[in-house]
């Protein structure tokens, strides 16, 4: 199995606060990796480092075998972020226009062709939002919006899909459908890295789990993971207890 992401001894700190400490982690082609950990455990930062959006202070990251900072084939990466940026809550842009953006890295400065349009149609159909194509994206529900972002990743023909807590604020029924869609995409060969706070649902769908709190506690198959004590260790670490203490004020 070839490695899609390979991070080696990666560390990152905001000023003097270390949020990612010497983490080594590989994601293989076809994996469905669930990334969990307490609040502020550096999950999002690690994900951004792995995608080359941030430079680690020390250590190295390879994406598809190329150093992440030099990786130029943006078409292979799809990203669904934490719920709604400010722009998508105001900006007049239709669902179809958002999905078209997935083709932009492919076409550069030339126009979208018939073939591009077909790929966009298929992406919309795949996530079952064809009927919403002309709606303003800000008027969709949380679940529909996230589907649109998945469609954008599909339109770019990404083979790595990274999701950062995609189902925050999405109703339970839509969450189930959303994960069914992810399973489906994973089966068709797309590698998925997912940050999720809902442990129950992520262990149900992901085939690999990684648990971190600044450092990596465990990275293995989901079955083994549930038998290990990684969660207990991560969520009872000194860091977490300290911040919880602050939060409750005792």
């Amino acid at each position, binding site marked *: 199995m070839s490695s899609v992401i390979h991070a080696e001894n990666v560390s990152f700190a905001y000023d003097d606060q270390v949020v990612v400490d010497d983490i080594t982690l590989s994601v293989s082609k076809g994996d469905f990796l669930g990334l969990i950990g307490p609040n502020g455990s550096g999950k999002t930062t690690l994900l951004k480092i792995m*995608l080359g959006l941030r430079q680690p202070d020390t250590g190295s990251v390879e994406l598809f075998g190329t150093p992440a900072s030099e990786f130029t084939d943006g*078409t292979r990466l799809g990203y669904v972020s934490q719920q709604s940026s400010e722009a998508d809550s105001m*900006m007049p*842009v239709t669902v179809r226009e958002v999905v078209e*953006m997935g083709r932009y890295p492919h076409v550069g400065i030339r126009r979208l062709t018939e073939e591009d349009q077909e790929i966009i149609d298929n992406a919309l159909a795949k996530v079952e939002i064809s009927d919403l194509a002309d709606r303003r994206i800000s008027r969709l529900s949380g679940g529909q919006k996230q589907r649109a972002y998945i469609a954008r990743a599909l339109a770019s023909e990404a083979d790595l899909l990274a999701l950062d807590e995609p189902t925050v604020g999405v109703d339970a029924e839509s969450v189930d459908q959303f994960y069914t869609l992810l399973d489906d995409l994973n089966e068709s060969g797309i590698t998925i890295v997912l940050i999720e706070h809902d442990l129950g649902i992520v262990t149900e769908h992901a085939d690999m789990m990684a648990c971190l709190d600044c450092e990596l506690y465990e990275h293995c198959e989901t079955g083994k993971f549930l038998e290990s004590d990684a969660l207990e260790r991560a969520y009872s670490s000194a860091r977490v207890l300290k911040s919880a203490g602050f939060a409750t004020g005792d």
Partner: protein
Amino acid sequence: MSTEWVKNWNPAVGLLAGIPFLLVGFYIFVYVLFPPLFESFWGATCGTVDTWLVCSGFLQRGFTAGILIGITAPIVGTYLVNRQMALIGEALAHMAFGGVAIGLFVGAAVPSMDYPLLFALISATLAALVMQYIAIKTDGYADIPIAIMLTGGFALGVAVISYGVTFHSTVDSYLFGDILFVPFENVQLMVGLTLLVIGAIALTHKQMLFITFDREAARLARINVRFYDTLLIILTALVVVAAMQIIGAILVAGMLVIPVAAAMQVTNSFNRGLLLSILLGQVAVFVGIFLSAEWNIATGAMIILVAIALYLWTFNVTLGSVVILAAIFASLVSWNLAVGVSFLLAVIAIFSLVRLR
């Protein structure tokens, strides 16, 4: 490594390589093709309509400049507004005003350098680059550099003017705009700038839209966000300098923002919004110029007021209708049927667009 660099900067390199050809093309169009085109268009218009509004050389040049502003300002404005950078045009306009002041000062001393718009172009572009640099290098709120540039540019302009000897009427024409003050070479300059803006946006619209909507995802798709940000802010500087002659440094931002704000109210699509904002910009320019000629009111101010009336109308049909009806009534009473009719046509056109959304 070197090939990686080329790949990273592909759009930039492509654009840079095209510049010499582009310049030659520009030169030919602006200096060889445009003047006879201008003559024959206004000659024909004057021949058919035959009112002083289209037959006076002053107004012909003013109209042409206005039409060009009505195209370019809403184009760049559409991206700016959706990036919450609505006031950046105002800051650049004030810096351009500082440049005009320096240009007038230098021009008074060295007659061969008497071309204030060139100074405006340089100072606005420099300001754009500095602002981009500050945005990258500092952690502060985005409106801080805007506020500093906005006041700083004006302070510079006022300081230079108070030191040198300048005619107030000349300064006023750059501050508030003056449609009767557009020499033909400035129209030519504007044609060149308009072509540049349209060409650049036609090539990079997709990347600009992607970055405007979702910066992080655009970076992930390995779009060179910094390059396109810099391009947009430079284009904005060009548009602002071009628009300053008619609208005036103080009111320029209105043309970048108001037609876009109005278009955003009535459409769900970014691309349609872009086109509609150009259309609304044209209506504002045409009606504004007509009314300013009719009522003897400053043109820049009238254009902005008409744009706001259009915005109110898309925002709240009743309120807007009252404003527009009042304007129509006044224009009919006072004589010029053409004004009233053009107004009515504009209203009908926009109304049908609203219905068709």
